[in-house]
């Protein structure tokens, strides 16, 4: 039976339906104002997912995603655009949405380090911050084109990260954890006491503008007022798509295999010719680069950077998103980021308790479902490929 199912390519429909439903649901959730309604919607989601799981529908969906990821990916982008279009004049929802997109990019970067290469990085927020500060400084004091600023933000994150390479390569386990944790505190304190970068007061970031098109101004499409956040949505969506494809291809290549091999057993890997240092470095730098880019863009979206945005606690949240989504599974990250960013914002009643609840949820996950919401499936080099 299993063999049979393996042989024939899974149908597209389940994936499409799932996408359509979740799009509709997302719109409903984001539009909902009244607390009871929101709570109802969330409860409904939980029940629905569980039901679908027991009816085996989730399995259908995941198989159709596994085999038709390319097509479904395109649909997912369209779905995101539908949501954005629906809220075209609602600043706050769009800001929320953009936040999700950029956090996903960052966690994808972190995922290369934690999920594939097994290189610990508890300073994710710090590298995010480096990117943000880069765009703050560059947009304030220089005329560097803003797309280039994003790139520089990423490179700067990678560059500063490379200062940690020696200790990162030499240490194992908890000793390795200390390196990035110490760095996270170091950087935050540095930003706080350093006057040039605004100290604890932080810095303003100029809004993005490309070829004279200023991202911070609302614009109109045929008399309909559009929120300026739509600009950022567009860029973030592009960035996310690019990152997603990159990470996907990375995983589905010999490099992805190398990273897994060295994560799972360095000794065996080195006995089969793997240059441990080379691949650890690749993963660490590439990851920080992506985190940095996301940070740089997020800096422009928020219009403001301050040391307290990039604390060790924020890094922890990033790591927990990985864990929640299912380490190594990009789709899981998207879902997890949505949950972590959107739910507390909508559920005002828990606003104050959000960090507490979040921590409790992660603890429960670790105890009862350590593989995360969407566990990473076995590597398929080409979706739907059959021998």
């Amino acid at each position, binding site marked *: 039976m299993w063999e049979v199912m393996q042989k024939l390519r899974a149908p597209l429909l389940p994936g499409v339906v799932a996408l*359509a*439903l979740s799009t509709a649901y997302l719109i409903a959730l984001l*539009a909902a104002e009244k607390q009871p309604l929101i709570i109802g919607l969330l409860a409904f989601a939980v029940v629905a997912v569980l039901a679908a799981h027991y009816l085996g529908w989730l399995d259908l969906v995941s198989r159709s995603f596994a085999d038709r990821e390319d097509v479904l990916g395109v649909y997912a982008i369209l779905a995101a655009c539908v949501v954005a279009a629906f809220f075209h004049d609602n600043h706050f929802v769009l800001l929320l949405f953009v936040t999700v997109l950029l956090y996903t990019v960052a966690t994808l970067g972190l995922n290369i380090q934690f999920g594939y290469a097994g290189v610990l990085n508890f300073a994710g927020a710090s590298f995010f911050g480096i990117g943000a500060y880069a765009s703050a400084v560059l947009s304030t004091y220089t005329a560097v084109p803003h797309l280039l600023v994003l790139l520089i933000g990423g490179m700067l994150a990678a560059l500063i990260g490379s200062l940690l390479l020696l200790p990162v390569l030499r240490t194992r386990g908890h000793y390795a954890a200390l390196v990035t944790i110490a760095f996270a505190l170091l950087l935050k304190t540095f930003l706080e006491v350093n006057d040039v970068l605004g100290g604890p*007061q932080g810095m303003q970031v100029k809004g993005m503008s490309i070829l004279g098109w200023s991202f*911070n101004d609302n614009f109109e499409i045929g008399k309909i007022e559009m929120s300026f956040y739509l600009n950022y949505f567009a860029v973030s969506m592009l960035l996310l798509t690019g990152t997603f494809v990159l990470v996907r291809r990375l995983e589905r290549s010999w490099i992805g295999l190398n990273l897994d091999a060295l994560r799972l057993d360095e000794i065996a890997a080195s006995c089969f010719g793997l240059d441990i240092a080379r691949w650890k470095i690749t993963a660490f730098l590439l990851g920080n680069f992506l985190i940095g880019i996301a940070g740089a863009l997020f800096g422009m979206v*928020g219009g*403001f950077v*301050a040391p*307290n945005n990039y604390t060790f606690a924020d890094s922890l949240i990033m790591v927990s998103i990985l864990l929640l989504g299912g380490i190594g599974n990009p789709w899981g990250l998207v879902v997890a980021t949505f949950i972590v960013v959107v739910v507390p914002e909508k559920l005002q009643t828990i606003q104050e308790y959000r960090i507490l609840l979040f921590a409790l949820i992660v603890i429960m996950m670790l105890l009862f479902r350590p593989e995360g919401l969407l566990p990473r499936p076995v590597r398929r080099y080409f979706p739907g490929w059959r021998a």
Partner: protein
Amino acid sequence: MSRIARQLSFIFASALFVGALVATAQAKDKIKVGFIGPLTGGVSANGLGGRNSADLAVKLRNADAKAKYEYELVVLDDECKPNVAVQVATKMAADKEIVAAATHYCSATAIATVDVYHKFGFPIIVWGAVLPDITYRAKYAEVHRVNGTMINQNDANAELISKIGFKNVAVIHDTTDYGKGHNEYFSKAFAKLDGKIVGTFGVTADQQDFTAELTQIKALNPEVIYFGGLTPIGVRIRSQMDKLGIKAVFDGTSGIVSDAFIQGLGPLAEGSLAFREGAPTEKLPGGKFFMENYAAQKYDNPPEAYGAFSFAAMDLILDSIEKVGPDRKKVIEELANVKERDSIVGKVTFDDHGQNTVAVITKYVVQDGKFVEWDNSEYATGKRKLPGQQ
């Protein structure tokens, strides 16, 4: 292809349907106005006092039969942290439902958020933050302030301590714009009176241990330690001064004028100096009226030093809305021509930067566990003496 098209249309259809379904479930019979202040953290006492005062203004208005609208107060917490402030400010300004707001006790948060308010064209009146730049750095039509700036209070401060006869002062300030501002204006003012700043130390707002800095200060042995910062570290520094046996006078700013300072220190607070712009609430024109109504509401926190300003700010906002209706642009225009307007903190006049000019400065000294006006204190009469006072 046609299949894909069908699927796409399905996505759209269902999305729009559900969206529309929910969108229809929204009411707009109330007018929302906002308040932002530090409701948690070390200076939460001031934040809650301000919150209650704004709430009082709204309550009184809703009780008033002649009011055109029913008002709902949306309260957000900036934790006195710039980053949090920008988040909540964005959140509030992005919400089209909210017309205007009274915002910020901490200068660090106010200065960080003015650009946000400008970006969203959201009219606000600052009710407690004293950094001049908040209104003067840029010329934003959205930004106004009912309370005065820190410049005058530092002049008064320098004047008093040099009058007492102190010449050598060590400065500790937090490294936010608030602390830096105080350091700048005080040092200027004190230099004018040819006093000497023997050392200046910047400290971060969440620092716990100051023994290292204070030990250095001890070596410089100043007569006065000027502190440009807020209550929490003020308390820490004062008590660690005692640990190291430093006898200098503790000279604070408006940032420590709060009951929390005295509760935190107990007897150690005795003889600490502090300054605040504006007359003490009980001496304000509407002070009595305000205090009585505040008491009537039985809030569990006192209004604190800036409660009256918060009340005045919210009252101005409500007046404007009553006059021009719940429209941000119109409210901004209306606030622009506030001149000689009577309020419980006296006549309010916004200059072209939206800054109200408050000349009066109140000097305080802690005496028997209370902030007492210097001029009525036993220290002024010479009955008691500050350490090193002639």
